[in-house]
């Protein structure tokens, strides 16, 4: 079951978004997230949603996969939406007959819609980044973006390498966990019943073998890396070079335009338009 989690799943392809420089993708994702929170009226939000849909369509990844990634957070969205329903001023639409403090206002409804749209956009837009960028590209790009931090004696290359390896081993370790759990269940381990303490204790037969195997893997991997002449970031080259192309320039220009429009909307349309 554990294996079904989609964790930053990369979908290979040749779409416009796939071909973009991952550094630009990261930068634009940041810009998008910031402007999601700047956009505070319907006009602005509409623009952001429109931009998001264009990007989704350009990514060449089936839309169904995006919706699958939403499934996991549906509960959080609903929860925050319901919570927001009861906060906010304005005309009262409904009041709880038993607890008069609980009331839904038109402002609350507006809040709820806004918050849900924001979370959904946030997830979908960052899924574009992880779907179209391989984990190695992502860490490479982060390494390059963070390069200036070297001045502060931060080990940028080592951090990026650790991220690459961690991402590589996540599916392997999940599979391993599954296997160990089955093996212990076959010996009668009971992991589904009992109180909190008992459940925690019942994890020991899974966690100990998992740690042991992780250390063994780490040892093997370290040896394999040494065999392949790994000696730190010094003098290393990269097969994939990042080049800013016309696609990147176009994407940046479009995003900038939308962002400017969002600022314009926020500044000139009265907030009551919500």
């Amino acid at each position, binding site marked *: 079951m554990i294996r079904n989690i989609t964790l930053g799943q*990369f979908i*290979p392809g040749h779409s416009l978004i796939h071909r973009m420089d991952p550094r630009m993708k990261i930068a634009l994702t940041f810009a998008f997230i910031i402007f999601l929170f700047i956009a505070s009226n319907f006009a602005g939000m509409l623009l952001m949603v429109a931009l998001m849909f264009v990007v989704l369509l350009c990514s060449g990844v089936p839309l169904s996969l995006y919706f699958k990634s939403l499934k996991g957070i549906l509960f959080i969205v609903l929860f925050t939406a319901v919570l927001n329903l009861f906060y906010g001023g304005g005309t009262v639409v409904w009041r709880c007959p038993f607890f008069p403090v609980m009331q839904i206002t038109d402002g609350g409804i507006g809040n709820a819609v806004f918050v849900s749209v924001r979370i959904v956009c946030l997830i979908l837009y960052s899924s574009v980044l992880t779907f179209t960028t*391989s*984990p*190695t590209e992502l860490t490479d790009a982060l390494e390059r973006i963070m390069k200036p931090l070297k001045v502060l004696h931060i080990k940028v290359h080592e951090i990026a390498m650790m991220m*690459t*390896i961690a*991402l*590589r081993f996540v*599916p*392997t370790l999940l*599979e391993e966990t599954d296997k160990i759990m089955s093996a212990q269940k076959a010996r009668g381990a009971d992991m589904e019943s009992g109180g909190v303490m008992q459940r925690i204790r019942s994890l020991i037969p899974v966690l100990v073998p998992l740690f042991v195997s992780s250390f*063994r*893997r780490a040892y*093997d*991997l370290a*040896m*394999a*890396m*040494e*065999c*392949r*002449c*790994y*000696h730190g970031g010094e*003098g*290393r*080259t*990269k*097969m*994939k*070079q990042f080049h800013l192309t016309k696609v990147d320039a176009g994407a940046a220009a479009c995003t900038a335009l939308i962002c400017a429009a969002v600022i314009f909307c926020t500044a000139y349309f009265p907030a009551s338009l919500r």
Partner: protein
Amino acid sequence: MEYLSAQNTSFSYEETEDEEKLEVLHGVTLGIRKGEFVALLGHNGSGKSTLAKHFNAMLLPSGGKVYVDGLDTMDENLKLEIRRRVGLVLQNPDNQLVASVVEEDVAFGPENLGIAPPEIRRRVDEALQAVEMYDYRLNAPYKLSGGQKQRIAIAGIIAMEPDCIVLDEPTAMLDPRGRDEVLSTIHRLNREKGITVVLITHYMDEAVGADRVVVMDRGEILTQGTPREVFSQVQLLKDHQLDVPQATELVWRLRQEGFDLPECALSAEECVTALQKLLTRDF
């Protein structure tokens, strides 16, 4: 001249608190020529893996010397150059892949060597084609079969353009199909690219196709020679609880009974032909 050369090589693991010094190699002398395909056979604990790790300076001899193309493995400055020339493939295919995308993993070695990006690209493509995994270059390694993963690991070594590959029980964790894939891959690399191969295994049938078989037992070389020479010593191998292919054993057993059969049959076909010859002549 010999490409890999172990000269009276000994190796002991360092003493620890509760374990005394344990010598696992006792003065082994072995030379391997360029382009040769050598199978190194033996039990677990016979020292075959330990010896293999000496050939790319992953382990350093505690006595004697090991040379790779004339380079002394004891020289710290030569370490990287030695590892570029002699690649080591390990047993567990899951634990030696670094990146989440096949082609990026294959690029790892050349990247460490500081090779120019377009050249890395060329080498990666070529290496993936050499192991017949080019179509999988954008896949995630964890979705591949064991045999495919092991071929990716081999491609990762090939991309460094080594002269020699040492494989430490590369098939031990694979199913029969995976074993066939890996074996035919390394035989092809040896034949077509002239890469020297040292294959460590405990499957006797994998050794049959080698140019030379070296049998190790308890840290020493028990016997060596062509597969035919080695496998005709059935009694010696059996005394050391080593297997021989069933075809070889059958012919040997019938020979013991006094029948006029060749000294050694390496494959099923050879065995059948020999038996047929005997049966038809007699009938």
